[in-house]
Structure formats: C-alpha cells, structure tokens
C-alpha cells in the first residue's frame, strides 16, 4: 500500500473541513468594516467584513435581513452576529450573519446605559450599603422569568435538590425583545402584592446572549430597588454585567446559582443540626462533671477541715495534760506545808509540851484534874503526869 492509496478525495477534504469548522464554532460577534455589499432581488445580502490584515465573505439571508435596523452602508464599522460555515462546493469559508448592528449604534447604547447608571448612582441605588441580606431559610420565593425559558426548570431542579420545603411562585414575563422591560416591571408589582415572600429571583436562562437591553432599563432598575423583598438577579450572562445586576441585592451568574443563593442545602443544615445536638449533650455532660468535681472538692475540703479541727483539740488536750502535772504537785505541796504549819501550832498548844518545861499534872482516878488543896485531902490517891509519863501517887499529909 502506498501513500497514494490513502489519498483523500476533494469531497472528503471539504467535508472534513466543514465538520471541523461548524462543529467548533457557535454563533459569535465579529467586528469589522463592511465592503463589497451586494443586495440581490432574492432578498439575500452578500458582503465582506475586513480589518487591516484579514477579510471574510459573509452572507445575510433574506430571513435574517428583515431584522436589519438600517441598510448596510459601504465602509461602515459594524458588529455582525453569526456562525462560520464551509461551503462544500468551493471548500470556501463563509460567515453566515444573523444580525448586524452599526458600531455607532452600539456606542450610543453603551452611552445610554452609562447615563442611566450615573442616574442610579446619583440616587444612591447602587450603594453597597443598601443591599439587603437574603433570608437564611426561605419558604416562599417569587420567580420572575419567562415560563417558556429554561430558567424556571433550572430553579425548580435546584430547589428540589437543596430545599424541597420551599414554595415557588412564578410570575411570567418576557425577558428579551420589545416590551420586555415593561413586563418585568409589572411582574415586580405583582410580587409586591404577594404576601409571605422571602425573596425574589428575576432573570432568564439560556436564550440569546445578545439582547440584554431589558435588564439595562432604568424603570426596571428602579422597580428592583423598590421591591419589598430582596432581589436576586440572574440574567444568565457571565461576562456582561447589566444595570439590573448592579441594583439587585445579590447578583447570580445563572438561575441555578440564584436558587443556590436563595436556598440552603438541606444536607448542610442536617449536619448543622447533628453538630448542635452533639454540642448540646456535651455541654450538659461537661456542666454535670464540673459540678461533680466541684462537689468532690468541697467534700474533700470539709473533711480536711474537720480532721484539722480534731487535731487541734487533741493538741490542746495534750498541752493541758502537760501543764496539769506540775499544777497538781504545786497544790499538794501547798497543802502539805500548811499541814506542817498547823501541826507545829498544835504541838505548841499541847499540855504535854508544858509538862516538858517542868510542870506536872495531877488527876483523880476518874481523870478529873486536881487543881486546888481541897481536891487533895490526906490519903487521896491520884495520878501525876510528868513530861515522859505518869506515876501513881498518894497525899501523905494535907
């Protein structure tokens, strides 16, 4: 097999190029200068778009030509919205244009948006301080969007997944094209008449990314600012920020994200409840064990104090005992010396002591003391007591 056997046919080359080009490119905006404009009786337009270094052949079919706001002008700068395609017959690349806007008009539109922005700014409507927080657990949410669009579906899907207990009240409104801003303002007025609404999502999903004019409308911006509940904007455009986004309390990139902002995830809440339950029992356990520890400490201190008191009493008793011995001896000695004193005094008064000094004592047989002569007639027997004893005596002669 040679390389020639594998040679492509021209058709295959054309088909492959066509697939490569058309599969990869969605509709895009291309900016360039209009040249070689040809308008055919069939209603189709042919022209080139070019800049300093490149040019591309363009076709504007009759079906799309009806949307032209002004006739195409040779040499003018435009924005063309379309898709790149390959024309197989000539293997030629063409840009299939769906919409053409003069760059000057775009400039004017941008200027108008800027003017409205300045007016909103001057009235304080873009002040970050006036942004209201979203409720933590919304139970009823108003949704302003087109019920034909993907936004409602996306929001319902997210709500069912995150927080099924919510009620969604949908207010239908056009979200692009002529009259859309007026319908959006009316929808906001309806939301203000609903009661029990926690927040409002206003936006659109999918659809053309080119027509955001409704969301740059001044009346809509003012209605959003005046809405009685917090508003989440979800214009579904990641790149361009509309004035509605700036005025809204919260800006979401998509309707799904708006629903995520508006509703908690029930798994997070469930986890929070579990954590709180654990904290609750732990806190009580801690409290009880701290109380118990404190009681134990108090009991220990009480017992300690009691023991200390007993020891103090014991010590006092010992001291008393030690002091009691000498005190007793002293008392006994005192009594003893007093006794000796008394004995001495007694001794001094004893008649026996007088006998010691040479006296003697005469007593009758019956013990009576014989003091006088009459007591002693002759022959009387009596007892004579001297210092060291007594003798029997008799009166010889009276």
């Amino acid at each position, binding site marked *: 097999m040679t390389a020639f056997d594998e040679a492509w046919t021209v058709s295959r080359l054309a088909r492959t190029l066509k697939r490569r080009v058309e599969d990869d490119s969605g509709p895009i905006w291309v900016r360039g200068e209009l040249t070689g404009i040809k308008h055919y009786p069939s209603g189709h337009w042919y022209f080139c778009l070019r800049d300093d270094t490149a040019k591309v052949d363009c076709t504007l079919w009759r079906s799309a030509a009806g949307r032209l706001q002004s006739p195409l002008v040779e040499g003018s700068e435009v924005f063309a919205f379309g898709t790149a395609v390959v024309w197989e017959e000539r293997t030629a690349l063409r840009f299939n244009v769906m919409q053409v806007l003069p760059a000057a008009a775009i400039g004017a539109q941008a200027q108008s948006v800027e003017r409205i922005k300045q007016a909103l700014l001057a009235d304080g409507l873009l002040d970050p301080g006036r942004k209201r927080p979203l409720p933590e*657990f919304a139970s009823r949410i108003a949704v302003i969007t087109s019920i034909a669009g993907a936004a*409602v579906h996306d929001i*319902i899907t997210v709500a069912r997944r995150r927080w099924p207990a919510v009620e969604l*009240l949908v207010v239908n409104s056009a979200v692009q094209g002529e009259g859309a801003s007026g319908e959006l303002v009316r929808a906001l007025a*309806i939301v203000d008449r609903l009661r*029990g609404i926690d927040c409002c999502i206003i936006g659109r999903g999918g659809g053309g990314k080119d027509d955001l004019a409704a969301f740059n409308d001044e009346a809509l911006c003012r209605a959003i600012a005046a809405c009685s509940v917090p508003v989440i904007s979800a214009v579904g455009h990641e790149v361009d920020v509309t004035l509605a986004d700036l005025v809204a309390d919260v800006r979401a990139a998509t309707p799904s994200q708006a629903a995520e902002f508006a509703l908690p995830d029930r798994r997070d809440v469930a986890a929070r*409840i579990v954590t709180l339950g654990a904290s*609750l029992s732990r806190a009580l356990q801690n*409290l009880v064990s*701290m109380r118990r520890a404190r009681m134990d400490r108090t009991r220990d201190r009480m017992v300690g104090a009691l023991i200390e008191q007993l020891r103090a009493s014991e010590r006092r008793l010992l001291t008393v005992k030690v002091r009691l011995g000498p005190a007793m001896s002293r008392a006994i000695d005192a009594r003893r010396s007093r006794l000796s004193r008394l004995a001495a005094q007694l001794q001094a008064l004893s008649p026996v002591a007088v006998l010691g000094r040479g006296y003697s004592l005469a007593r009758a047989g019956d013990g009576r003391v014989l003091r006088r002569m009459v007591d002693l007639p002759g022959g009387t027997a009596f007892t004579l007591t001297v210092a060291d004893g007594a003798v029997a005596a008799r009166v010889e002669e009276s």
Partner: protein
Amino acid sequence: MTSSKSARTNAPAGDAPTLGDDLKRLEEIVRRLEDDTLELETALQLFEEGVGRLNAAQLRLADAETRVRQVLDDSAAPGGPLRFESLDG
C-alpha cells in the same frame, strides 16, 4: 375556589418559630450551657428545651415536595385578586 386559595396562600406566616429561630436558640442554649456558673436546675431546663427544638428542626428537614405555582393577574381592576395555577416543572 380562587379566592379561598389565594387567601390561604397569602396567610401570614404566624408566630410559630421558624427553623432559623430554632437553630439560633439552640446555639444560644449550647453557649449558655457552656457557662459553668449556671444553676443545675436552669441547665436541665435549657437542655430539655434544646432537645425539643432539635427534634422540631429535624422534623422540618423531613421530605417535602416543592410546590410550584404560576401567579396570574387577570383581574379587571389594578390590584385585584391574584390567581394561582399549579405549574409542574
């Protein structure tokens, strides 16, 4: 009947505690229980209240079906009654 339906829808939420109230109170109860100067009697009362709110919060998480309704204003006079139509997403 449209009027009764809208009346029910527009009924105010009432004073029953919301899930947010329950969670906030639970956090406060835990905080208070962590204060060890609390009387044991008060602590037990708070704990019981906490358990009640915990159960209530768990019940609220039980499965519910998201209700989707379209709001229609086809009253002749501005500010007239609104109509609600079920919308199956």
